[in-house]
């Protein structure tokens, strides 16, 4: 680049900077401000670092919305999430669902025990129908709401499997009937192994 051209470019850049002092930061992303308070438990941009709390980054919007509806209605039991789901509904569930769906997922940093992962791999065969060979879920297929569970924390997956097994989560939901009947035949310890397996997938 010739020198004068460089100067012109610099001047143009300087003018641009003057014209737009508020560089587009994260706050300009739709939903950012509304999602900000969730990070206390779900991590910045929805990438939870704890074993008990699910990762929201990259979650399919339809799954997110159903979760909020069920938490708010009490059909997905959580003392913590029931009030917050109602708060999300007043804020606008669509915007929050879109925000978290747009964040890139970072798998849980909580390491699963290797032996449990290996046992879980064998026990997880029936799960692949909806959750995919690699736990990637239905990936937007309207006929398959199965969530992507690869890399979610094991503690969270296990707690949800136990709720499904006892029919305490979303009782009466027709698409879940098959999964619940499969889970009834699996011991709790094995469910922990399955959870470890999916949490280890990337």
């Amino acid at each position, binding site marked *: 680049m010739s020198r004068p051209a460089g100067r012109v470019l610099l001047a143009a850049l300087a003018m641009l900077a003057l014209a737009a002092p508020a560089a587009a*930061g994260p*706050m300009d992303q739709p939903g950012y401000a509304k999602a900000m*308070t969730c*990070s*206390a438990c779900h991590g910045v941009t929805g990438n939870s670092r704890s074993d008990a709390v699910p990762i929201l980054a990259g979650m399919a919007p339809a799954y997110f919305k159903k979760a909020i509806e069920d938490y708010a209605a009490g059909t997905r039991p959580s*003392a913590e999430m029931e009030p917050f789901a*109602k708060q999300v509904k*007043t804020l606008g569930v669509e915007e929050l669902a879109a925000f978290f769906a747009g964040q890139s997922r970072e798998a849980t940093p909580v390491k699963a025990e290797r032996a449990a992962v290996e046992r879980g791999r064998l026990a997880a065969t029936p799960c692949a129908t909806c959750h995919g060979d690699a736990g990637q879920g239905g990936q937007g297929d309207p006929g398959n709401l199965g969530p992507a569970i690869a890399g979610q924390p094991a*503690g969270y997956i296990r*707690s949800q499997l136990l709720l499904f097994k006892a029919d305490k989560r979303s009782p009466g939901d027709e698409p879940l009937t098959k999964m619940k009947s499969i889970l009834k035949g699996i011991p709790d310890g094995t469910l922990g192994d399955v959870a470890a397996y999916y949490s280890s997938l990337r």
Partner: protein
Amino acid sequence: MARMTRRQFLKASGTGAGALAVTGLAGCASMGGEIDPKSSRRVLVVGGGWGGATAAKYVRAADSSIEVVLLEPNRKFVSCPFSNLVLSGVRALGSLTFSYNGLRESGVTVRHEAATALEPDARRVRVADGYLTYDRVIVAPGVDFLLDQVEGLAAAQHTVLHAWKAGPQTTELAKQLRAMPDGGVFVLTVPPVAYRCPPGPYERICQVAWYLKAKKPKSKLIVLDANQNIVSKTALFRAAWQAYPNIDYRASNKVVKVDAGAREVTTDFGDTVKYDVVNLIPPQRAGAIAVQADLVGPDKRWCEVDHVTYESLKHRNVHVVGDSTTGLPVPKSGTMANAMGKICASSVVHLLNGRPAPPIPPLNTCYSWVNDREAMAVVNAYKIENGKVVQIEQKLTPGQSTLYAQHAEGWAKSIWADVLGSGGPA
């Protein structure tokens, strides 16, 4: 007191009242000029606790063209949440202690010095050697103790501990508890509302009672509560205390006097109670700088703020977050301070860029440990209606459990990172 040297006075004031101590001396301190003149728009943050540290980090994250300077005299961040577990020996204080390096990595300039005075009209904050100017300031001074409301407390404050700001007093009170003979009496006093962390004293009662039951079974815990009943999670604490027959809970017993020589406290009814170890949690108000800067309302204790921007109702370009605020239907909790810090940061960045601040409601979740392995929680959800924060719902966990203890651990890990960035335990 009259014979106290300046050094003793500063030392006696402790970290919590440090800002007050220096303020009191501002007249004779050097009135230096401007230090570190700002080169771009600057947000000053006074206080690096849950609200201030969060606000500093989030302003910087939202708009890196804004310079952020945080003033915090303490070199380490020590978490008040979970610090009751240090008294029972379940956790070490080191596991609750963090550096400010995560904030530095986020681009925040951290200055370990106290703000001695805030001058809203001049838009500047005084420190020991001069002053720093700002475009907007976020004040997060936490609470200070009203020692003069308990006769004898100011003189006895080295031995009569509050341990209500996690740090050296936490370690010291744990030592006093360990050294107490079996058969001794531990007296814990609860101040009248409003005070930092409504369920905190009752969680502490659980932890002390749990420790005494296991290690000093002939000992007793007498609770003198200035309030008419357990202030928070009432039914859950009542249920938890079934496991602790060593608790003697006395409501409507406000402590007005302490005699460290005779080892006794006196209530407003004139009853005296003897102790071997006392944990006297004094009445509280907003941190001293909020009082100095005329941010407190008619009650002379707490700061009234706009519910959307957290701007002071008394001074423009001054925002207040955390325990020192009043008027919102919210508890003085760590989660709440963290939420306020983020929302205030968003508002400040919008306003500095000439845009209206989006109305974002805060939220609260607050876990209490009832023994070494079980916890319970209260959750509060909010909305904004006509510019005011309104509660949608408050919900308690159905009881105490190890599952909620796991949730508590997860919450702590997440929120410490949210407040401080990537800085791990110090």
